[in-house]
C-alpha cells in the first residue's frame, strides 16, 4: 500500500473531515501548494480557493476560505473558517464567486 497522510480539517463548528489520504492541494496565501506524505513540517496560511483531496484514484473537492494549515509527520491539521464540499472543479468556481471573503484585512 502506498504511503498515506492523515488529514484533519477543523472549523469553529467542529471537525469537518478526518481520514487517511494520498495527497492534497490547498490554496496558500501566495498560491496553491501540494502536500504528499512525509512532507517537511510546515505552517502555512490558507487563503480562499479550492481544496483538492486525493485518495486512491478518487478526488474530492472543497471550497475553503481563511485559515492555517499545520503539516507534521504525524498528520496535517487544517484550521479553516469556512469549508464546503462541492461536486467538482466547475461547481467550485461558482461557489467561490458566491463566497465573500470573511476576513477583511484592513490594509
Amino acid at each position, binding site marked *: 500500500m502506498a504511503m498515506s497522510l492523515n488529514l484533519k480539517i*477543523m472549523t*469553529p463548528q467542529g471537525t469537518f473531515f478526518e481520514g487517511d489520504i494520498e495527497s492534497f492541494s490547498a490554496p496558500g496565501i501566495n498560491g496553491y501548494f501540494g502536500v504528499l506524505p512525509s512532507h517537511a*513540517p510546515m*505552517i*502555512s*496560511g490558507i487563503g480562499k480557493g479550492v481544496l483538492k483531496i486525493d485518495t486512491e484514484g478518487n478526488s474530492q473537492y472543497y471550497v475553503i476560505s481563511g485559515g*492555517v494549515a499545520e503539516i507534521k509527520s504525524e498528520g496535517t*491539521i487544517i484550521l479553516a473558517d469556512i469549508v464546503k464540499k462541492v461536486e467538482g472543479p466547475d461547481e467550485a468556481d461558482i461557489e467561490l464567486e458566491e463566497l465573500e471573503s470573511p476576513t477583511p484585512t*484592513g490594509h
Partner: protein
Amino acid sequence: MLTLKEYNVKLARLRSTRKMTKTMKMVSANKLKKAQKAQKDASTFEAKLNEIVGRLGVEVSTQDHPLLNPKSVPQKALLVMFASDKGLCGGFNSNLNRKAMEWLTNNAERFKHLEMSFSGRRGFTFFKNRYTVKKHYEGVATKPHFTDAVNIGRDIQAAFFAGQFDEVYVAYNQYCGALSFKPVIEKLIPMDTSLFRAQPNKTEQGMWIYEPARHELLMTTIPRLINLKIYSILVGTSAGEHGARMSAMDNATRNADELIEHFTLLRNRARQSKITTELGEIVGGAEALK
C-alpha cells in the same frame, strides 16, 4: 379561608404551571446539550489556533497591525452586548444589563461618544432608548452560526478602520461550566499584544517551514482571531442561556411542588371540615325529626 372548590381550581392551575416549567426545563436541557457541543467545538478550534499562533514565536508590537494600534486618547467607543433573545432564565440577562449599565456610567466621562451594538433582544430592549444603537443583530443569539460572527466582526472592524470608534468593547456572560456564568466586559479592539506572547520553549524554528513568513502569517490571522472570539462569545452565551433557563425552570418546578403540597393539605382540611359540617347537619336534622 377558601372553599373546597376554590382550592381545587387553584391546585389545577398550579399543576398546569408545574407541567409547563418542567417541560421547559427538559427542553432547555436538550438545547443545552447541543449548545455545549458547539461551545466545545469552538474552544477546541480556538485552543489549536492559539497553539499554532503561540508557536510562531513572533514578538508583536502595537504598530504591527492597525487592530493592535491603540489611540493615545480614545474618545469614541462601541460596546457590543451579547444577551439572549428570550427571558425566563434567571439573572442571565439582568445581571449583564446591570454590569453594562455600571460600565457605561463609569466610562461616560472618558468617552465623549458611546454607541452600542446588540445581539439578543434582552439587551437591545433594555438599552435602546438610553444609548445610540449602532446595530441590532437579530436572530443570531438563538442559534449562532460562524458566518454570523464573521458578519459582526466585519462590521466592527470596518467601523474601526473608518475611524468611527477608537475602541470596541464586548459585554457578555462568560461561560464557565454548565450552570455557571459571569458577566464580563472586555476590550476587543485594539487587541492586547500580550495575547501573542511567544512561547520560546515550544518553538522548533529550525525544522519548520513558514509560508508566508511568520510575521505575515500572524498578521493575516489577527482579524480572524477577532471573528473567532466573537463566535466563541456567541456559542458561550447560547450555552449559558440554556443552562440558566434550565436551572431557573428547575427552581420554578420545585417551588410549584412545594405550593402544591401546601395547598393539597389545605384543600384536604377544607374537605374534611365540609364533611364534618354536613355530618353535623344530618345528625342535627335527624335529632330534630324525633
